[in-house]
């Protein structure tokens, strides 16, 4: 057998084995709608973290919780786990219920867990730990898994009008809005909406009841109507106007984000199903974004500076982006959520097996400035309709969709005043992904290379990319 055929058959066998292993892993660990989340609201940033269960207790990763607030690094040495946050040091031991933060002994309500070098603390200990490390006041709503830092909180009042009802918030809000017969639901994941009254009965011919609840890292306002209702935002996004829907409004359940393009108050009750000025995100099961933080484990990626490795920068950025996307109500899976080795082709196999809608390969570099967005260096003309896509050219069928999405990402970066460029490049494993696929390379914001890992800079990029996914979702779904 010629060497090329032997090589090809060996690679095919390896891929098949990898696919089988990945499918098993996915079946075992596929994210479900019931994934537990904790939302943290700070004065400058709001984000969500996954919550895991260990021996009947809820746990959360301490490093991830601190990442948006500054430079944080952590490492395990045997059973000992040390974390450095700005100028503070914390130390914990596996299975020990006492830790040390800035030299002060802290009791935990459960044992510290070390999992793949990630330090997990009991969720109930997090308010105390963050309060101590950030030197700020914390307010934890345990039933809803919502943690408020520094006294943040967005309150609302109701204002009854002749033809509807206004919900006035003390800050701009961006809820996910869904309608179902007799009800209008507003879900606030990224907004620190709080309320003292959990049931309101406004004297209104349209609205019979407003309930406020907190659950799984989000707040929910449900407006029960006497007639079909429609929600619309004012330009400053501080007011949601509840108005009666038109007569034909007996529509199927519809989900709408508050991310509407708004120049002024959106036109009243233009249509249900979805009003044209709001972007319809009618639930299509399976719109999942896969974040693939480049490198990891034995593969450190580029050495950006003496102390900064690409694998750590990409993981931190992926966690921020995940939080942003989840805030927009988008499901996310990650190729890795710890410092572990994942093969390059294995990453594409995970994306293909999970049938994700968007795949984002995340990288960091010390050269240049801003963000570079890459699509596969492949000719779309080579795409052929077929039941099975060739592994080496799986992307060909989706590359136009990928390029459209790359253009949207670049535009959104521009709106956030982040320099962006977009072009094709031979990045592994974009060619093997059967979905809209981009590689995003984050470069420093200034001459200081360490700015590539700055929390605020990464957060801005993550917000821009997440908004681009929301804007480009319709296009991506149309071409799936």
């Amino acid at each position, binding site marked *: 057998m010629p060497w090329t055929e032997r090589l090809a058959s060996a690679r095919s066998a390896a891929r098949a084995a990898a696919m089988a292993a990945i499918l098993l892993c996915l079946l075992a660990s596929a994210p479900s709608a019931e994934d537990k989340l904790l939302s943290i609201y700070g004065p400058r940033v709001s984000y969500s973290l996954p919550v895991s269960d260990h021996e009947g207790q809820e746990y959360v990763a301490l490093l991830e919780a601190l990442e948006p607030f500054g430079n944080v690094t952590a490492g395990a040495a045997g059973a000992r786990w040390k974390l450095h946050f700005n100028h503070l040091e914390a130390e914990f031991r596996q299975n020990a219920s006492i830790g040390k933060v800035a030299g002060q002994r802290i009791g935990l309500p459960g044992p510290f867990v070390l999992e793949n070098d990630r330090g997990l603390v009991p969720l109930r200990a997090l308010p105390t730990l963050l309060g101590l490390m950030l030197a700020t006041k914390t307010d934890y709503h345990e039933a809803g898994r919502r943690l408020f830092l520094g006294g943040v909180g967005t309150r609302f009042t109701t204002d009854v009008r002749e033809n509807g009802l206004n919900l006035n918030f003390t800050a701009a809000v961006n809820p996910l809005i869904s309608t179902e017969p007799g009800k209008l639901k507003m879900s606030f994941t990224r907004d620190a909406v709080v309320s003292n009254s959990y049931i309101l009965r406004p004297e209104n011919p349209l609205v019979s009841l407003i309930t406020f609840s907190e659950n799984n890292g989000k707040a929910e306002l449900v407006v029960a109507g006497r007639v079909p209702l429609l929600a619309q935002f004012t330009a400053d996004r501080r007011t949601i106007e509840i108005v009666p829907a038109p007569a034909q409004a007996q529509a199927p359940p519809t989900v709408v984000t508050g991310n509407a393009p708004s120049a002024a108050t959106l036109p009243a009750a233009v249509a249900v199903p979805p009003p044209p000025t709001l972007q319809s995100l009618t639930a299509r099961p399976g719109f999942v974004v896969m974040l693939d933080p*480049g490198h990891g484990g034995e593969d450190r990626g580029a*050495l950006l500076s003496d102390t900064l490795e690409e694998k750590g920068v990409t993981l931190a950025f992926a966690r921020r982006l995940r939080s942003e996307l989840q805030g927009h109500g988008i499901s996310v899976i990650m190729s890795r959520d710890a410092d572990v080795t994942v093969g390059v082709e294995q990453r594409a196999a995970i994306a293909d097996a999970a049938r994700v809608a968007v795949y984002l390969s995340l990288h960091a570099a010390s*050269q*240049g400035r801003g963000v570079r967005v890459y699509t596969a260096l492949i000719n779309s003309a080579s795409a052929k309709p077929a039941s099975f896509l060739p592994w080496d050219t799986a992307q060909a069928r989706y590359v136009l969709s990928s390029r459209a999405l790359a253009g949207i990402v670049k535009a959104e970066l521009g709106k956030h005043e982040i320099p962006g460029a977009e072009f*094709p490049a*031979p990045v*592994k494993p974009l060619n093997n992904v059967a979905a809209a696929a981009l590689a995003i390379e984050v470069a420093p914001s200034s001459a200081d290379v360490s700015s590539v890992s700055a929390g605020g800079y990464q957060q801005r990029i993550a917000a821009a990319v997440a908004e681009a996914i929301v804007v480009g979702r319709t296009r991506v779904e149309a071409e799936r």
Partner: protein
Amino acid sequence: MNRSFTIATGCLLAAVLVMGAYLFSLRRNEQSRVQSLPDRRPIPAPVTGPPSRVTLYLAYDDPGVVRAETVSIALPPDPGERGREILRALVGEYVKRPSAHELPATADVKDVFLVGTDTAVVDTTESFAEGHPSGVFVETLTLASLVKTLTANLPGVTRVKILVDGKERETLAGHADLECFYDAVTVEQLLEQLR
């Protein structure tokens, strides 16, 4: 323990030590003999041929472009050897200090093989990949520069495959694909976007 047994053991130990010292000296003598031998490995024949003008597509990290530059180099008649000399001239620009697109000082192109009528296989040295700066952009510039230079100067070549020290490699330095064949048309599309 009787006296004769003690003497015998002592003699054996002494013999072991003497043999060890002898073996050590033999090894050292052999090493110095091998080192003093002349290097009889074959060396490539010097490139001969009339100077020809070729276009190198040089990568510039800042501002991130690939620019054409014409140089004059001696080129042999064999197309494969011509390709090798053209790429060596290109890589030679990158190993200079300073360079607009720095590659390790020992980076080089070992050979260029022409397969069929349209495919070139470029074999690079191990240090070309091992010491290459890591990053999507910088790796893409290197590959685009190599492929464009080769396809522009060897008529008929439209596909390029890159090997490292005679072997296939997954990526150049962690990002850019080295398992695929590079197509002249798609690389041209990339260069268009970079302009």
